[in-house]
């Protein structure tokens, strides 16, 4: 059983940090949702808030780790220009390789079906919108920490915080879903 360094980084970027983000989101959303007047006793509020503070900051940290590792470590392997302007380095290949055909070359060459749109829409969207996730997640973490139990009586503020929280999640879903599809169609090896 073997895993290359590139595959390991892809796993760290998408599977470990990305999954941590999604798990923290599920817990955070449940925690925020339950901060309703008359729903929790004071001791339960203290305990719930401690978990929520940890959850939202873990989510923000996971989002930063995901986008930084994705952009600065994994993405250069994806976008390397190896195949030449005519993508001749990809001719006859069924999958990209590290020597003559990067994943981007492979997708744009259309040597294995109509794959260029995976890059032009999927990767282009993912690489940009993904950065909205840590910005929004950090803002949410700050709001939750700053207002704390005051979110319970302030329904509007709690809803706004949830909207931002879901926005961070949506951006991560675009990144994660296209990342999974792209790694299936044109894996980084």
């Amino acid at each position, binding site marked *: 059983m073997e895993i290359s360094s590139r595959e390991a980084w892809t796993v760290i970027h998408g599977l470990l940090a990305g999954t941590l983000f999604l798990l923290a989101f599920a817990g955070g959303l449940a925690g925020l949702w339950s901060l309703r*007047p008359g729903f929790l006793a004071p001791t339960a509020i203290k305990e719930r808030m401690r978990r929520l503070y940890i959850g939202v900051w873990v989510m923000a940290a996971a989002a930063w780790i995901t986008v930084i590792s994705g*952009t*600065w470590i994994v993405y*250069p392997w994806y976008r390397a220009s190896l195949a030449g302007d005519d993508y001749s380095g990809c001719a006859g290949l069924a999958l990209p390789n590290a020597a003559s055909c990067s994943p981007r070359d492979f997708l744009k060459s259309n040597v294995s079906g109509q794959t260029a749109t995976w890059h032009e829409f999927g990767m282009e969207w993912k690489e*940009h919108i993904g950065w*909205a996730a840590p910005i929004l997640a950090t803002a949410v973490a700050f*709001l939750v920490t700053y207002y*704390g139990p005051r979110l319970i009586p302030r329904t509007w503020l709690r809803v706004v915080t949830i909207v*931002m929280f879901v926005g961070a999640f949506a951006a991560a879903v675009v990144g994660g879903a296209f990342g999974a599809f792209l790694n299936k169609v044109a894996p980084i090896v």
Partner: protein
Amino acid sequence: MASEDKLEKDYEMAPEIAELGLEERPDGPGAAAMLAAGIGLFALGLFTVLSEASAGLHDWLESWDFDKGVGPLAGKTTVAVIVWAVSWIALAIGLRGKDVDLKKWFWVALILGVIGALGTFPPIFLSFAAE
């Protein structure tokens, strides 16, 4: 509404938090966090569009990749994060200890954020590509 009035209203709405001994908190720092997030997303979308529209800006954004092979994405994301962080710091200092209408600040942030997110959508930013 002053912070102390808000806290009294909070206690009326949710008496269970009265036992927690909460201190008063003005809304300025909350507004700063919201608006800075909106500004950060707007910057991300703006740089994504401008990178397509201007070859000069594209090259400048690409110069942020420090030979790592990231291309202009390095500049778009790094500069957007700097804009977000600097605007948050500036707003946090400007609004420290102040009470503001949080709803107004949120709506401005939401509009900026939505415009920014649209700017990262490929059919939109690619339509600005220079010929």
